[in-house]
């Protein structure tokens, strides 16, 4: 009973809460990092060094007036932010933060569950997240958000193809779709897949930037576009949900990249006994450090690079990334067959 219901429930509660807190602090981190890149300080007023800024933001968004456009489709208008947010949260069910550890006399694995199609689950859940964007633009009952949302979703489903192809290369290397098995495969082959599959790694990172609508692929939500993007008509807590969903997606993508390419919870060089002193750092800390590295890189890229125009963005996705991903897959397959 305890093992089947209570412990997973506890894990779910912990992971959900941690994710939501992490998302709000990621917003603060981004503001700080971009500020420091631009020779300024970022939020400094609320709390020491601006630490309590996310609380101020949350309170502000919650007490804002909830405006619904007059002829908007009420159900769809309300559902769209939820549809955007939920996939970003439920992906955490399969992300392994660490191996089984002993807690209070029980062996508790540091992941909520490990299904044998874990990677496929992640990709399919991510593809459902596209609905939030489409419906947001539609439900606003206004021409410009609709067109912006169609463009944003077209961008998402285009880059989904490239990203999924790189994931297939990883699956070829590890021989399994389960996230925990992929980490174990990296452990047993003594090589993080970022080094075994550098091209897939790069394509995954670029594709994830486009999937999460981050710079330099954030044209659909740039202020310089003539509309505010698909969330123009949203205010208050609904807008907050979209915003949080985008950052939650960023964290998800970083976690997936960590698990697939950087060895998940493994410490550097797990088979080198001389570095055994590194074992004092718990496994989930390695996971968090690596995810944080990706998040930092994403923020850094946003601070530095200009943005692509929409047609250039689509060209890159279809004409550059997909052929490269297919080529990578072919080479991986051939090499695997030749070496076995």
């Amino acid at each position: 009973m305890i093992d089947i219901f209570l412990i997973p429930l506890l894990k779910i509660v912990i992971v959900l809460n941690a994710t939501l807190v992490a998302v709000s602090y990621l917003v603060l981190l981004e503001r700080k990092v971009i500020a420091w890149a631009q020779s300024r300080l970022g939020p400094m007023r609320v709390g020491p060094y601006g630490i309590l800024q996310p609380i101020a933001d949350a309170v502000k968004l919650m007490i804002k007036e909830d405006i619904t456009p007059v002829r908007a489709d009420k159900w769809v208008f309300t559902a769209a932010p939820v549809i955007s947010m939920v996939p970003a949260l439920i992906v955490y069910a399969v992300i392994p933060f660490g191996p089984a550890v002993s807690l209070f006399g029980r062996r508790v694995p540091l992941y909520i569950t490990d299904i044998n199609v874990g990677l496929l689950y992640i990709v399919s859940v991510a593809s459902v997240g596209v609905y939030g964007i489409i419906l947001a633009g539609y439900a606003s009952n206004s021409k410009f958000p609709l067109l912006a949302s169609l463009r944003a979703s077209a961008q998402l489903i285009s880059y989904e193809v490239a990203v999924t192809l790189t994931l297939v290369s990883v699956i070829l290397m590890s021989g399994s779709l389960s996230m925990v098995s992929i980490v174990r495969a990296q452990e047993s082959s003594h090589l993080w897949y970022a080094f075994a599959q550098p091209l897939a790694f790069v394509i995954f990172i670029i594709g994830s930037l486009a999937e999460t609508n981050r710079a330099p692929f954030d044209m659909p939500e740039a202020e310089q576009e003539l509309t505010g993007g698909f969330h123009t008509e949203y205010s208050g807590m609904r807008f907050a949900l979209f915003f949080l969903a985008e950052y939650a997606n960023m964290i998800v993508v970083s976690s997936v990249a960590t698990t697939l390419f950087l060895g998940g919870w493994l410490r550097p060089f797990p088979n080198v006994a001389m570095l055994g002193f590194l074992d004092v750092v718990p496994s989930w800390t390695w996971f968090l450090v690596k995810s944080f590295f990706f998040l930092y890189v994403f923020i850094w890229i946003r601070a530095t690079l200009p943005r692509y125009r929409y047609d250039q963005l689509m060209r890159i996705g279809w004409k550059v990334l997909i052929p490269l991903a297919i080529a990578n897959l072919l080479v991986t397959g051939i090499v695997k067959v030749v070496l076995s």
Partner: protein
Amino acid sequence: MEAPAVHHGAMFDTNELVLNMGPQHPSTHGVLRVVLRLDGEKVVDADVVIGYLHRGIEKLSENRNWTQIILLTDRMDYVAAATNNVGYCETVEKLMAIEVPRRARYVRTILCELQRIASHCLWVGTHAMDIGAMTVFLYAFRERELILDLFEEFCGARLTYNSMRIGGLPLDLPPGWDKKVLQFCDIMESKVTEYEELLTHNRIWRERTKGIGVISGADAVALGLSGPPLRGSGVPRDVRKDEPYAAYDEMQFDVPMGTAGDTYDRYLVRMEEFRQSIRIIRQATEGIPAGPIVGKVPRLIKPAAGETYHAIESPKGELGYFIVSDGKSTNPYRFRVRPPSFCNLQGLRPLIKGHLIADVVALIGSLDVVLGEVDR
């Protein structure tokens, strides 16, 4: 009266969409309104609507005496106010045949070139930010602050200087100012390299600016463009070289030119102008002669009846003043400005055709318009 290029009421006319951009828009560099007619994402035609910042400067001048007009000229190209002052004062000096002492001419040169750097700082910051590189905006404004500090020390103001008088300058340079200017030049050179590192060879920047808004030299001349938009298309016209004013005939500098006439070339021209301005400032500051700061000017400025036109090279292009004096009153009979942004903005409509919406902001930034000048 000719019908506007875009029928403002049309909505779903035969697959074409009418989109209104501005006058309140984060990227139109002021209160500019552009009504676009789109076919899908391509711009078929554009109607540029101006006048939202019209304050009647030319009419107001008719009720001000010649010295008071200097205050009004500040507010035209408010990004580079001292340049406007210099242009106006030189026009009146030309009409009255007043000789400006050499020291004053040198100081005017230094101030004009500092304004050129300040204006280009603002240009590069806003242009880059429109295209998405937001960090350059803050770096450029950090350097612009240094220039504004120099000006504040000289004349007490940061934006609208009133820093010229007919015949020279109202104040001499504060002691130690020239050393600060030279320090600034050293800092600025490394910063220009920093901007170039972020942009010039950046693949995304090149894809967003190469081949966008191409205009040939002949078309540019026909449209009346001037400044970097003209030189970016390969036409060698710079008022500082062709009709030198202030102390430019004594300065050594090059005039950067582009070849392709696209946004990228205009960007390169302005980036090189940074370096040339620093060169001029160094020469002028190191060689500044001693002497009076203002020439022999009558107490009451009352030019004889006549008219004249005089142009200078402002950071935006050729800034010209046409003044008519009737010889009887202390106010001008007619005061007319040829603002470079107004004439450059005429190029927006032919340049924009065939491009996508996302290029509109890149083009407005590339032409570097200031609405204060356009509308006066």
